[in-house]
């Protein structure tokens, strides 16, 4: 009888191990969701500052709200283009990313400016996203070692909790902690840390869309720069088309200067 018990226990442990998912497999599944050949998006960035808890409602209220609209194209993880369409004061500001290079076109001075070094850390158009954040589209697997550290419920969804530690130097954040939806393999919360262990930013995903073919994509994200006391930025993707034909020469300095 003891023998049978051992066999059942062994089979149970074996089956559990066979079904267990590793941290690396989880981020591979995230990459499958987030990476694509080409994409065209229209999005809004809503920057809220001066946030304080309203005494009557008990909810946080922003003192000032600024909305920006942008058009984005991307190809793989190396090329990205963004153009601001609204408001008028920002209209025509364009960004181009090719590999690790980032350029910005400012219509007010009619000049292409290269953004390099720590300038990449600067807030993009006053938002809680930095230039680096907004142009980040690299594969997680290539840049991080992943470790599954637990499971917990987040926003009523069962999530894996995964810790990522940079394995290459060229990363914006040394350590990342993700809450990954077990069913859809999209992270619903992301904590971004400096090498010192200091929490720099927190991103929460509140809307995920099914794009067909079993692919899910976050379409409503809220980023909080923890070094700012009272601001947050919502990034809302209004439309997204994947694997579409993009305008010829869109990822070039030539296009950045075009009218």
């Amino acid at each position, binding site marked *: 009888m003891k023998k049978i018990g051992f066999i059942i226990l062994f089979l149970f442990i074996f089956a559990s191990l066979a079904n267990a998912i590793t941290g690396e497999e989880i981020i591979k599944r995230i990459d499958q969701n987030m990476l694509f050949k080409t994409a065209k998006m229209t999005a809004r960035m809503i*920057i809220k*500052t*001066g946030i304080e808890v309203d005494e009557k409602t008990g909810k946080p209220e922003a003192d*000032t709200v*600024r*909305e920006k609209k942008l058009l984005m194209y991307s190809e793989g993880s190396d090329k990205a283009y963004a153009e601001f369409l609204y*408001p*008028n*004061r920002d*209209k025509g500001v364009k960004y181009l990313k*090719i590999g*690790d*290079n980032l*350029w910005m076109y400012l219509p*007010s*001075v*009619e*000049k292409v400016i*290269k*953004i*390099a*070094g*720590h*300038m*990449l*850390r*600067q*807030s993009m*158009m*006053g*938002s809680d996203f930095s230039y680096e954040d907004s142009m980040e589209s690299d594969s997680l697997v290539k840049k991080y070692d992943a470790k599954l550290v637990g499971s917990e419920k987040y926003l009523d969804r069962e999530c894996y909790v995964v810790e990522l530690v940079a394995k290459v130097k060229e990363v914006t954040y040394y350590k990342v902690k993700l809450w990954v939806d077990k069913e859809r393999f999209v992270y619903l919360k992301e904590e971004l840390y*400096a090498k010192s262990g200091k929490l*720099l930013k927190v991103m929460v995903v509140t809307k995920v869309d099914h794009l067909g073919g079993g692919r899910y994509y976050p379409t409503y994200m809220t980023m909080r720069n923890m*070094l*700012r006391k009272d*601001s947050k930025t919502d990034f809302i993707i209004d439309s997204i088309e994947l694997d579409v034909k993009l305008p010829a*020469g869109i*990822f*070039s*300095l*030539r296009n950045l*200067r*075009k*009218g």
Partner: protein
Amino acid sequence: MKKYNLIYIVLLLLLVAASASFAEDWDIGGYIRSEIDYVMFKDAPRVAALDKVRLRIAREIGDHLYIHTELVYNRMDGSSLVTLPGYNSLDRCYAQIYFPMVDLTVGRQRIAWGTGYIWNPTDVFNPFSLTLSDEEREGISAARAIVPLGAASYMEFVQTAQQNPANDKFAFKIKGNAGLFDFSSSFVKLNSAGDNQFGGDFVGELLTIGVKGEYINVFLNSGRQYSRYILGADYTFETDVMLIGEYYFNGLGATNVSAYDWTSYLTGSIYQLARDYLYLGASRTYGDIYQIQLSYILNTNDGSFVIYPMWTWNVLNDLDFYLGALTMGGSSGTEYNPNSTQDPTGLLGNTYYFAKLRYSF
């Protein structure tokens, strides 16, 4: 009456633009700016009001043609510093034609060369000048051809058409990218007298610090030659505080105050008097709402300086308010604090306080 011509044109255009079908095809925008300056002149304080309207009308016609015009109306009132009645100008007016192998731009346009923050020795078309500085640099009438060589590299040819044909310039630049650096080399035929300029610039990243540089060597027909260069660096902290430093070497400048060429400076033939300058800047943004900036320019040869603090407030999505000051100081008879013989206009050596509102439409 003449000065109101532009206003009538603007109103007419806005009226036409109100038609939805017209507005769909045309890109119409610009800004209206009103500024009040309080100037601590050496003799007495004065107040000046400056108004500016910039109207952009542009249109893309098919995939290969783009036309762009910018009309500017400027007016200065109050106990004026200098007589500056309202005037109109057509500051940009050009057509861009996109061929498969080349982009051609013909007309009055801005050609912005160089990588420096403040000084751009390679920019022969519109160099920085403290007395001429405005939000936009003036356009220049020219034909420009850009031949792309790759996504981040191209060749550029420019032929200017200036009022005095003897000052017409022909310029060539080749620009490339390697690793985290952009770089370029250029040649400029400065005039018909046979003065030429060779130069280059770079911008990139070194140990996470943004670095920039420009260098030119001018060969005059007389056999004389001189060089100019800048070296700059910037660093941004996690708190969004950005620090910038830039050194400028002006080979045509003098190290001794008595050798300054005031006549060329005041007539706009040269833009700096001394040989060595230093720029230090710091800025910080608070969301998209507030920004504070502090700029400091030092003439290291005579010790005169410019301090320029500014606070910007984005009141509404398209409405910005600026509050600042510009102080020029140093010993009497120096570049930024000249005496009345050196600078009869009296514009230099003062402290300007300003407040301005700018509405973008």
